[in-house]
């Protein structure tokens, strides 16, 4: 059982996403500490990538801000090593396959384990390509997080059965803006997941308000919030951490 399971022991989990180095690593460190202090159950740390093909414009911009600020994988490892001296909340890295691959998969994943990163979420590694990194993840005890979108019931079950850490549910394509219409669809996915695994699942769906977070947490084990957190960095820059703390607090209270 990985440390990620702890994130789901305190009621519904709240999972914010923060891009490392946006606009600098000092700000990221302060924001992580604020998020932990205000009740974040798990923190998703983004390692920026030049071409984040699975992101919308808000997080694309954050990636570019971070890269132009000069962060790289080595600096982020050093930063997390330092952060882990006092930060206890489970943390995962979210990045793209090439960042891991180019660093050397084993070197990257063993370093994750060494510095206290509990899981790895790579949106461009679907079920079919997991073998690229799975052996190293198992060798060093880092969970390789799976994403599930509305596909077929068979596919959802297949991914759920092999999942570890937690499962990332996304609404997928052809979704009109209104959340109320999507909730039943997400619930049916969460139900299939629960029939096939005890691994917890959380929903990422353009959540910006505590009410929305509660709505998705009610049908799953938690809420993942990405763009709304990143927007605070876009808006406040180095002043973002205190706002991140307030945001996390309001979200966690609603769950």
């Amino acid at each position, binding site marked *: 059982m990985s440390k990620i399971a702890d994130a789901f022991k305190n009621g519904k989990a709240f999972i914010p996403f923060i891009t490392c180095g946006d606009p600098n690593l000092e700000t990221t460190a302060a924001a992580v500490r604020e998020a932990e202090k205000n009740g974040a159950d798990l923190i998703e740390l983004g390692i920026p990538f030049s071409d984040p093909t*699975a992101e919308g414009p808000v997080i694309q911009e954050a990636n570019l801000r971070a890269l132009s600020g000069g962060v790289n994988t080595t600096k982020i490892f050093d930063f997390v090593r330092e952060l882990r001296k006092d930060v206890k909340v489970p943390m995962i890295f979210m990045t793209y396959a090439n960042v891991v691959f180019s660093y050397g998969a084993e070197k990257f994943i063993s370093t994750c384990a060494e510095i206290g990163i509990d899981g790895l979420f790579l949106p461009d*590694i679907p079920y079919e390509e997991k073998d690229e990194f799975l052996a190293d993840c198992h060798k060093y005890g880092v969970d390789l997080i799976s994403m599930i979108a509305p596909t077929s019931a068979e596919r959802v079950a297949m991914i759920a059965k092999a999942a570890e850490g937690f499962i990332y549910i996304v609404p997928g394509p052809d979704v009109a803006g209104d959340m109320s219409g999507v909730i039943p669809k997400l619930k049916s996915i969460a139900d299939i997941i629960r029939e096939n695994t005890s691994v917890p699942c959380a929903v990422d769906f353009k959540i910006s308000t505590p009410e929305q977070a509660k709505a998705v947490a009610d049908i799953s084990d938690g809420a993942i919030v990405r763009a709304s957190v990143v927007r605070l960095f876009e808006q406040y820059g180095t002043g973002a951490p205190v706002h991140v703390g307030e945001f996390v607090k309001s979200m966690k209270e609603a769950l």
Partner: protein
Amino acid sequence: MTNPNGRFGIHGGQYIPETLMNAINELEEAYNFYKNDPEFNRELADLLNNYAGRPSLLYYAERMTEDLGGAKIYLKREDLNHTGAHKINNVLGQALLAKKMGKTRLIAETGAGQHGVATATAAALLKMECVVFMGEEDTIRQALNVYRMRLLGAEVIPVKTGTATLKDAVSEAMREWADRISDTHYCLGSVMGPHPFPTIVRDFQAVISKEIKQQMLEREGRLPDAVLACVGGGSNAIGSFYHFIGDKDVRLVGCEAAGRGIDTFETAATISTGKLGIFHGMKSYFCQDEYGQIAPVYSISAGLDYPGVGPEHAHLYDIGRAEYVAVTDDEAVNAFEYLSRTEGIIPAIESSHAVAHALKMAPKMDKDKIIVVTISGRGDKDCAAIARYRGEDIYE
């Protein structure tokens, strides 16, 4: 060459978000059905022959041959296809496939604009909606093609992110597809991206080498000694090579864009300067930095200005079946002018990279040797840019 999960040696694969897997699986299933469907193949052949103007000529470049004094040079005239490039071969295939799948909307990325124009053309013909993503930088370099696409009824969306060139247009098209699959087919323009695209696009472009082989046997009674084509993602090159892969005596030469030189950062020569990586759905060679960040590539040619190369090319390189050379902007511009003056054929600046290598190669070969150079597109779209490169003050 393809094994069931879309690998070419170690290259290829399906490195895409889960949100795209439904669409990719649906496409693979449909393609596997229709590629063997007689009715589909009849309709496609009709479009290729009676709309796109196939077969394209294999032209003996006698003046060029005489001038260079070496190998006999033939030009495969893909520039004579409707819309002026090889791109139409793939687009008609994919658009017809999409239509059979019940899709009503095509999206595409484009670099030079040739693939965008071809997609807009097929969409007009087959009464489909069309949206083309094009790097903002490229919309400026290729303003005429932007107008052509709009004229054909397509919407052109300038992509401002990243380097605002082809790779960013691909990323944006992938994002759009991940958001809207039910009515939309992503008509990918090169032999790249996740499986099954590299195989589908290759199969639709393989008509080029199929014709070269037939035409060469009719004209010369034998196979050529070398086939040359330019390589960005690599669709006209794989199309030109495919039916010769088993003919070990035919040299296959891919000509990459070196930009200002492979020893500079202003290059797009992926096989010469890139390293193994995972991007845009595939494992292949990519121009990237030591942390795996994709490099901002450069070439005078918007169509070759891409930081990766198709996985089958990466494999042909690994096993030594094809060779890949780098051609600079200067060499390509010289070849652009040379072919125009010598044969009265204005090649696309992309194709000029292959012509440039032929200029180096042919004189060193005996007169009884034969090389085929694929002229992947026509150069009208490049005239203003080349004139500016030569210091003339011309704007479209």
